[in-house]
């Protein structure tokens, strides 16, 4: 990777010294990469307004011959997703997705489907699509592309198929990653459950693709159930609660 030229979405920027920025981007062709943008903080002309979080940029970077972090040479704004900035809820969701990408993905391993997913979801947020539904879509596909898709087709314990399971509400075994039917539920009732309708909608998303997502209509209870399920499932497999999820919950409480 001596010279790179690609598109990327800015996930993180850290101030480095008095003049520079260290950026982490999800790029179209090289996956997650970190770069140094020299004089980005000092110069008005070098990268004017281009290095903002969640923006999609086209970039040219060069790796120093002696090794070390690639240096950003050129950057042009492709899609600023400016509607996200200045909106608390949208920023909170975009931060949550970015943190998942930052913590979950390996460096320099191209993940084009995750790039397309993040770009699509940031675009949906920017365009005013419902953030909660967009987040359900992001999380489900993100899990799918990362090989951690939850098993919603059958009970993870008795292996009974969804259509044949008794009852209209199901628990979920976070460790095994599968539904738990009424007959297999033991002990006290879980904090949250998934109704049959919600499971079917989640399955529809899993089986579909981003092109059809705009046809998706979620009821309020289905949004709540899906949110609780996915925001419990992801931290469980991540091994910790994402910092931005705490912020997101705080902002959601303000709005309710």
């Amino acid at each position, binding site marked *: 990777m001596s010279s790179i030229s690609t598109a990327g979405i800015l996930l*993180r920027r850290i101030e480095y010294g008095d003049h520079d920025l260290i950026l982490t981007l999800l790029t179209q062709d090289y996956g997650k990469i970190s770069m140094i943008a020299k004089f980005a903080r000092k110069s*008005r002309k070098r990268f004017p*307004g281009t290095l903002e979080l969640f923006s999609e940029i086209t970039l040219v970077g060069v790796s120093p011959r002696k090794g070390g972090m690639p240096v950003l040479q050129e950057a042009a704004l492709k899609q*600023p997703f400016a509607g996200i900035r200045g909106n608390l809820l949208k920023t909170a969701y975009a931060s949550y997705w970015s943190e998942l990408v930052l913590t979950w993905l390996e460096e320099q391993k191209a993940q084009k489907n995750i790039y397309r997913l993040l770009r699509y979801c940031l675009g949906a947020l920017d365009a005013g699509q419902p953030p909660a539904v967009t987040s359900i879509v992001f999380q489900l596909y993100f899990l799918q592309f990362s090989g951690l898709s939850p098993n919603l087709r059958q009970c993870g314990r008795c292996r009974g198929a969804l259509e044949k399971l008794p009852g209209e509400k199901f628990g979920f075994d976070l460790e095994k990653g599968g539904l738990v039917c009424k007959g297999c539920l033991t002990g006290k009732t879980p904090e949250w459950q998934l109704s049959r309708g919600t499971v079917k909608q989640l399955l529809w998303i899993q089986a579909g693709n981003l092109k059809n997502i705009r046809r998706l209509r979620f009821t309020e209870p289905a949004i709540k159930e899906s949110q609780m399920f996915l925001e419990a499932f992801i931290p469980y497999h991540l091994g910790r609660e994402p*910092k*931005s999820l*705490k912020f997101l919950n705080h902002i959601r409480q303000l709005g309710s």
Partner: protein
Amino acid sequence: MIQYPASITRLIRNLSKLPGIGEKSAERLAMYLLQARKDQVVELADSLKDLKEKVRLCRQCFALSDEDLCKICSDPARDGAVICVVEHPVDMIAIEKSASFNGHYHVLQGLLSPMDGIGPEDIRIRELIGRVSKGGVREVIIATGTNVEGETTAAYIREQLAGYHVRVTRIASGVPMGGELKYVDQVTLKKALEGRHAV
């Protein structure tokens, strides 16, 4: 460093902990201090000691101050009904240098940053709401940066102050003085056009 006496070695070690100072620079500084006049070195040592002992945050605006209340907050000539909200004390100094503001300040000591886990309880937002809720504040000017963290913090403050009888404004953003349009990004240019004014 083994050849230096212990007191010099200690000084070099401490100086090299400062940002941007490596061991060689620390050694050079230590040699300079060794040859400097005694009163110069004592003055430097006293100023470092005072820095830690005297400097604190103003109890009202959280700017750096030698007193309980900073010079701006205790100045009767300044308009306490207008509060300018900034991220850090250096931002306050920058506005003061412009000589264009005669109100009081509120230094947040940071910005909301969801991915870094910096939430509203980690910066001085509650104290700002407290100042406004006491009454006597006519306008709150939010002068945080225009990056995502700055805009998020501004939006949060705006929402928190929505229930109070106070005018909440945001500093304008647009083409910088002496700047050329070709170097201005599309988001800034859009904001500049939206915020245009008659001449």
